[in-house]
């Protein structure tokens, strides 16, 4: 009985949810928050985007992402060397924040999803499924790749008057990664993951 009831996380009003067809969304009748939005073929689709994301993440973090040329001097940066530069200037907190939001959180997101989705794809539950999925949800607001992309664009416009900007391989990989990771998040149906814990 209790399983079919859901409380709105915006206002705590309890609703009885029956099957909602894919493509429809159930909203709270009182405050308008989303109660539930089922996703089509969630595990397969989300896993496909996760695998693509893992490859792109590797490229994005190893190849140079921007080159910068003044006269005959050329400077190429990878993401890691940029963050290292900030550490050297004693901007410890900012460097850590950038490292966390642009590298660690996206990496953990991809790893969590691989760990959860590959076994679920074959109808098996991985160990500590609940803990790993909780970690994924807690970290969710701290992944900021899309904002970082806009940051690169703005700084490129700022620098273009000083010198020649040479876009690197990692820049394109980053751009693709932004879309692939948001597709991974959008296609994932959290309810399906929680349901598989009940199944055990």
């Amino acid at each position, binding site marked *: 009985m209790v399983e079919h*009831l859901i409380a709105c996380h*915006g206002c705590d009003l309890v609703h009885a949810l029956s099957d909602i067809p894919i493509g429809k969304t159930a909203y709270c009748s009182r405050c308008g928050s989303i109660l539930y939005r089922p996703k089509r073929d969630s595990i397969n689709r989300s896993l496909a985007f996760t695998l693509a994301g893992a490859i792109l993440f590797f490229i994005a973090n190893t190849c140079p992402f921007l080159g910068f040329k003044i006269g005959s001097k050329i400077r190429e940066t990878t993401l890691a060397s940029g963050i290292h530069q900030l550490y050297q200037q004693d901007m410890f907190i900012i460097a850590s924040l950038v490292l966390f939001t642009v590298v660690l959180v996206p990496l953990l997101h991809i790893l969590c999803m691989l760990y959860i989705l590959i076994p679920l794809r074959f109808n098996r539950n991985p160990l500590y499924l609940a803990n790993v*999925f909780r970690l994924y949800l807690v970290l969710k607001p701290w992944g900021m790749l899309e904002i970082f992309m806009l940051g*690169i664009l703005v700084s490129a416009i700022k620098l273009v*008057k000083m010198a020649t900007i040479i876009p690197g391989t990692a820049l394109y990989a980053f751009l693709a990664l932004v879309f692939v990771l948001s597709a991974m998040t959008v296609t994932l149906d959290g309810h399906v993951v929680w349901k598989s814990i009940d199944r055990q």
Partner: protein
Amino acid sequence: MEINRSSITANAATAREMGLVSCHRCHLLCKLYDQKSACPRCGTSLHSRKKESVARTWALVIAASIFYIPANILPVTYTTSLGTVQSDTIMSGVIYFIHSDSWPIALVIFVASIFVPLLKLVILITLLLSVQLRWISRAKDFTRLYRLTELVGRWSMLDIYVITVLVALVHFDALADIEAGMGALFFAMVVVITMFAAESFDPRLIWDNLQSTHEEKY
């Protein structure tokens, strides 16, 4: 995205009134046996409302408001070119883009770095007051405002990333060099603290006042 009314039957009760607790993470409705129980499905500790939500949010909002001042006054970058050093605040960065005729970029930085953090602080203060002063007539609008702060707050990180890329790339000794200033540190703190503030506020408190008013009526 339309409302699927056929599948929803609105009960007139909240989880709390039914003696249930909605799990914060997995949204399972649980019975609360004692004060220290955890969700049987995902293990998150169960609270009917976020703990000390109002006091905690106030503390974070006040801290962020204080940091907002040095974040806007102190330089965020020092640019050295051919021996002369120029310091820039967030606002002078915006003005630079207006003068160089890239007003869309100026607008983006202004919105992300100056307008959004301020808007977020104003909205959170409004929400806190609405809970404490029992402004129940606009409860639905306040819930919308809360969702807005969750959505736009992260975009303030933009300037931090711009500074990171500039510092990382422009490093040619005496010829051209950019270093980050203390303003950037305060600004980063404002963004992080307001994100925690939005997280610690519980939107259900807005509606709880409505409930207690009903109880007084009947």
